[in-house]
């Protein structure tokens, strides 16, 4: 793989440190993912994507840049990919899901900050993430105070654009976000040198909607009594959706869904009958944060849905495809994105409604509310969510955890007790 080393070198990466990461990641993935039994053959594509995570896709980004194209790195489901693509740019979601990057993040950030932000900043500072190194511009947003201030620091290392996301959902907030999308559009046009047209925007709205449709198809398969795919695999697919080539992703995920639907018809499941079905809600899980899913699915549960940015928030609801001019296109984007029920909004009753709706749609038995440490909006919102779920008689448990391994035993014990309680309740109900 000498060609990748040359490529990484050209991206000004710290090859020695990156080598340490390469030493861990494949083994970590192998032990977490490849030990699952009876996986669908379609998962081979995702094994491939992860195996080539710092290879093929980086090469593609590099070729795009050599041809004069631009790459935009983002961290949040509010950054509209449609705008980037309509100007022939490539958007990639950036990593931040490993302890590996935390110490470098802590060099410039306070320790009492969420691991996602520390890891993201650390990934840039350590020069070990080729996606950060390939980005011509990073796009931040104001979804939390930690991120908002971290962008100011990250901006010293790399060109940065920040979108101001409103924190309420009044009519004027929708108008404001539409204006923010317009400002972002102008920024993207400047950097790429390409004007966004009605046709190009329409085309990319359709493409990103197609990506949303295939993810919904995947999630629909998880509504089945016989689960044809693990939650861990589904999480991986959602994570890959953020940075893979969209056309290839849509094709390969559709192929996988064909197989999953065939499995459902044949009653093939990757879990034994009566495995407690868990709706997971809470903070985003950036690649390679697979910890909570792994712990749940090795403690006797199955994750059937994620009400999270790496889950339904990313793909539910489509952008209106019937736009007639650029202005209506921006309006359609604002309407769709402002519909996401992020905990940064106040009030945020919509999220509670989503959780209850998804719990029913996916026939879940319990809810696990997962929060990263120091993620105040999600941690505080737990009370409102718990009160509402208690009223509905829905079992819920909160787990706060970072990327470290030390608390796994404790979490396992709590999970096992939670699943036992769910199973007992089900027996009593019969």
């Amino acid at each position: 793989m000498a060609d990748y080393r040359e490529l990484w070198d050209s991206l000004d990466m710290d090859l020695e440190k990156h080598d340490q990461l390469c030493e861990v990641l494949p083994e970590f993935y192998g032990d977490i993912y490849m030990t699952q039994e009876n996986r669908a053959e379609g998962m081979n594509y995702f094994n491939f994507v992860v195996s080539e995570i710092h290879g093929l896709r980086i090469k593609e980004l590099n070729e795009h840049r050599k041809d004069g194209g631009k790459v935009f790195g983002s961290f949040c489901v509010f950054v509209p990919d449609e705008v980037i693509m309509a100007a022939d740019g490539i958007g990639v979601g950036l990593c931040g899901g490993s302890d590996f990057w935390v110490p470098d993040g802590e060099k410039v950030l306070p320790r009492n900050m969420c691991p996602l932000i520390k890891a993201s900043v650390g990934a840039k500072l350590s020069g070990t993430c080729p996606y950060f190194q390939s980005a011509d511009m990073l796009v931040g947003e104001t979804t939390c105070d930690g991120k908002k201030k971290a962008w100011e620091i990250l901006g010293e290392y790399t060109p940065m654009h920040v979108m101001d996301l409103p924190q309420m959902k009044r009519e004027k907030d929708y108008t404001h976000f539409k204006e923010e999308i317009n400002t972002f559009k102008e920024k993207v046009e400047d950097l790429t040198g390409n004007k966004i047209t009605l046709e190009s925007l329409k085309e990319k709205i359709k493409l990103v909607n197609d990506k949303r449709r295939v993810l919904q198809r995947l999630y629909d398969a998880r509504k089945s009594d016989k689960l044809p795919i693990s939650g861990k695999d589904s999480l991986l697919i959602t994570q890959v959706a953020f940075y893979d080539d969209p056309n290839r992703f849509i094709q390969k995920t559709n192929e996988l869904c064909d197989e999953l639907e065939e499995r459902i018809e044949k009653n093939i499941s990757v879990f034994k009958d009566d495995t407690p079905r868990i709706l997971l809600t809470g903070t985003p899980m950036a690649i390679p944060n697979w910890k909570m899913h792994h712990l749940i699915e090795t403690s006797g549960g199955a994750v059937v849905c994620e009400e999270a940015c790496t889950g339904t928030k990313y793909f539910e609801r489509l952008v209106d495809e019937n736009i007639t001019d650029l202005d209506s296109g921006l309006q359609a984007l604002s309407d769709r994105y402002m519909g996401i029920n992020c905990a940064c909004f106040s009030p945020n009753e919509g999220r509670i409604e989503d959780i209850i709706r998804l719990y029913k749609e996916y026939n879940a038995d319990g809810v696990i509310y997962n929060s990263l440490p120091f993620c105040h909006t999600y941690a505080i919102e737990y009370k409102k969510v718990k009160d509402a779920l208690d009223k509905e008689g829905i079992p819920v448990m909160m787990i706060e955890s970072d990327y470290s391994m030390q608390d796994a035993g404790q979490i396992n014990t709590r999970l096992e007790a939670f699943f036992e309680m769910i199973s007992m309740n089900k027996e009593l109900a019969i």
Partner: protein
Amino acid sequence: MRKQTYILFPSHSDGLALEKKLKEKSIKYIISPTPRSLSKCCGISIIIDPELQYLVEEIVEQNKDIEVSGIHTIEKKARNWFK
């Protein structure tokens, strides 16, 4: 732990070319990250049942355009990361 045979490639395109052949011949395989013990490259390898190695060698022999950089059979023990 069961023994597994890993096929290593100089590039991902060779791996995908072999995958295509394995699919055509209905030979069971899994695409996997290459274990560090076998190579320092961060790339793909293909896992097959050791008993099927001869079939893969035949395919490689017949398809000179598919380059393989090694075939290794190892006993791989999974590590419990969250312990």
